[in-house]
């Protein structure tokens, strides 16, 4: 194996046998044997997965629930054996599938640190060398002689997390454990991950649903669906592909429903757009056809950052208007936005129909950044490129 490779996954297959009913007694296996029933169903969790992770990389694995990403992580950790294919790991690997595995509530914090260390393959002396650092990072110096059961849940998680990231391993596997502790602790962890990202000797594999973390920390990422890698490459693209996938899956826009609300937003362009696009939509409603004036108003809500970036104000609509509107998005940064509309009749206070969470329409702006580091979507408006 080349020296600069930390993990090499070579054509790995994994199939699970899922028992139909509780099949853990001798009787049921005898019965099934005579009935020629299998008593289980096969489910292929990973299909021919191949990739390499270089040393020093911060590698992200994303995918929907049940896509096989946790199975993959467990194979990397050596917990599951692949049915087919090879796995090569170069260096000391420490897995954190879950925080605080093996913690014993009856033992003191100190004993738990050492117990956890030995479970991860560190000797007592090695742990002694790391002990102060771990405790200091967790900020639990005063509590180490207390029993773990007397810790608050936040303290327990902080201790577990500190063990996870302060042990001296070459490769760290993390499953969805980035945001723990209070705000100050999270900021500290964030700093730590930013430093680790630059560390050329430490490799991190991160499984996460938070595309923010993936974009922020990862240098490489893969998207898994149905046991296969469907996208690999820079974390931006992978995270965007994942968002798109979920956008279809979640079906946030109930517009497609058969039940027709009084008013709804019908998109005329794609729902995932870039800042260069113009988002067009039609406000579909039944015009009351009265002699009174009918007012329409629509606005955009920023779902991620909050607030209303745009409001059209009231304007009069006539029965034969097509009510199609265009939103140029030039200045808008990445984000999730919802278009809402309302109808008033006669006076400006008399609202007769409005869209809600379901009948409004959500669209996403997902820009592809050519240069890394340009993606700074904290703000609503972006720097023009």
């Amino acid at each position, binding site marked *: 194996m080349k020296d600069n490779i930390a993990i090499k996954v070579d054509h790995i297959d994994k199939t699970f046998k899922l028992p139909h009913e509780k099949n853990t007694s001798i009787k049921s296996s005898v019965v099934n044997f005579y009935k020629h029933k299998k008593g289980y169903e096969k489910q292929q969790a990973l299909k021919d997965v191949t990739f390499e992770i270089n040393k020093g990389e911060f590698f992200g694995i994303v995918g929907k629930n049940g896509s096989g990403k946790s199975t993959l992580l467990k194979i990397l950790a050596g*917990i599951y054996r692949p049915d087919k294919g090879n796995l090569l790991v170069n260096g000391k690997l420490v897995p954190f599938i879950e925080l605080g595995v093996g913690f014993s509530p*009856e*033992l003191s914090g100190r004993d738990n640190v050492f117990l956890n260390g030995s*479970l991860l393959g560190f*000797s007592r002396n090695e742990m002694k060398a790391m002990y102060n650092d771990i405790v200091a990072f967790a900020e639990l110096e005063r509590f180490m002689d207390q029993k773990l059961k007397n810790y608050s849940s936040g303290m327990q998680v902080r201790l577990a997390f500190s063990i996870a990231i302060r042990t001296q391993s070459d490769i760290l596997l993390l499953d969805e454990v980035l945001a723990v502790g209070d705000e100050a602790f999270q900021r500290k962890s964030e700093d730590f991950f930013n430093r680790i990202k630059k560390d050329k000797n430490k490799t991190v594999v991160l499984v996460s649903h938070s595309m923010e973390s993936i974009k922020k920390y990862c240098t490489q990422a893969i998207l898994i669906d149905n046991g296969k890698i469907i996208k690999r490459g820079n974390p931006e693209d992978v995270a965007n592909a994942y968002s798109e996938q979920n956008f279809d899956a979640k079906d946030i826009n109930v517009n497609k429903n058969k039940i027709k609300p009084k008013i709804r937003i019908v998109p005329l362009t794609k729902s995932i757009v870039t800042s260069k696009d113009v988002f067009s939509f039609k406000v579909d409603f039944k015009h009351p056809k009265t002699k009174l004036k009918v007012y329409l108003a629509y606005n955009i809500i920023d779902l991620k950052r909050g607030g209303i970036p745009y409001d059209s104000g009231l304007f009069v609509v006539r029965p034969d208007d097509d009510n199609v509107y265009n939103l140029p998005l030039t200045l808008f940064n990445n984000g999730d936005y919802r278009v809402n509309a309302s109808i008033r009749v006669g006076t400006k206070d008399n609202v007769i129909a409005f869209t809600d969470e379901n009948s409004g329409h959500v669209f996403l702006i997902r820009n592809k950044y050519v240069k890394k580091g340009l993606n700074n979507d904290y703000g609503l408006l972006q720097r023009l490129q």
Partner: protein
Amino acid sequence: MLKRVFSKQNRVLLAELVRTDFKLRYQDSVLGYIWSLLRPLLIFVILYVVFVKFLKVGDGVPYYAQYLLFGIVVWNFFVEMTMQSLGSVVGRGDLIRKISIPRWIIVLSTSLAALINLGLNLIIILIFILIGHVPITGSVVLVPFYLLEIYIFALGVSFFLSAAFVKYRDISYIWEVFLQAGFYITPILYPLSKITNVLFQKIILLNPIAQALQDARYAMITKVTTIPQTVFKGGWHEYIPFMIVVLVFFGGSAYFKKQSKHFAEDI
């Protein structure tokens, strides 16, 4: 292979698991570790009163009290070790599903905890032997060998049971019945000489525990006891218990090794 099995990393983990187990055992009890000596002592007193004073089962066997206590200790060790090991893999399911530690370490640490208990019990026995003025001969050096034989046998059984229990939860009930039967067909409470049929004596002594127990009693406590050598009259049958031990150990380990690959999925 042994070098890999007992690598530094595995030794550390084993020590830590045993230490934790022991620490947790007498949590929140006032007397703490003293209980591990006090408990067998109190049980011995009960047994002594019932079997030596009331029932007089061991009439004719010198030092019957020590003889009886030793039998109970050895049998209890076997019961404790196999019963605890049986549930150990399933009980540590959280570790197995989330960390890749060698699976056999879990069984081994459970067995060592039982072994430590056996050691403590033997201290009590030793005290009784000294109090009772049992004449100690040179053959006492054989006792550790017989105890090792029982340990290896129990370890083979433990490996098999703990792995089988992952798939078949019936095992725990079956094994309980097995142990109950074993308790009565092993000469623990009664001297083997009470069974007058030689064929039955032979069958009973094929059981490695019965054989090792009788041999160890012969070596340590009294010569007035039935041992395989006299029953089998030097035939090759005498070695069947040892063969069973070897067979059970390797069979149990092999089964465990094969099954352990899928523990994380099956639990």
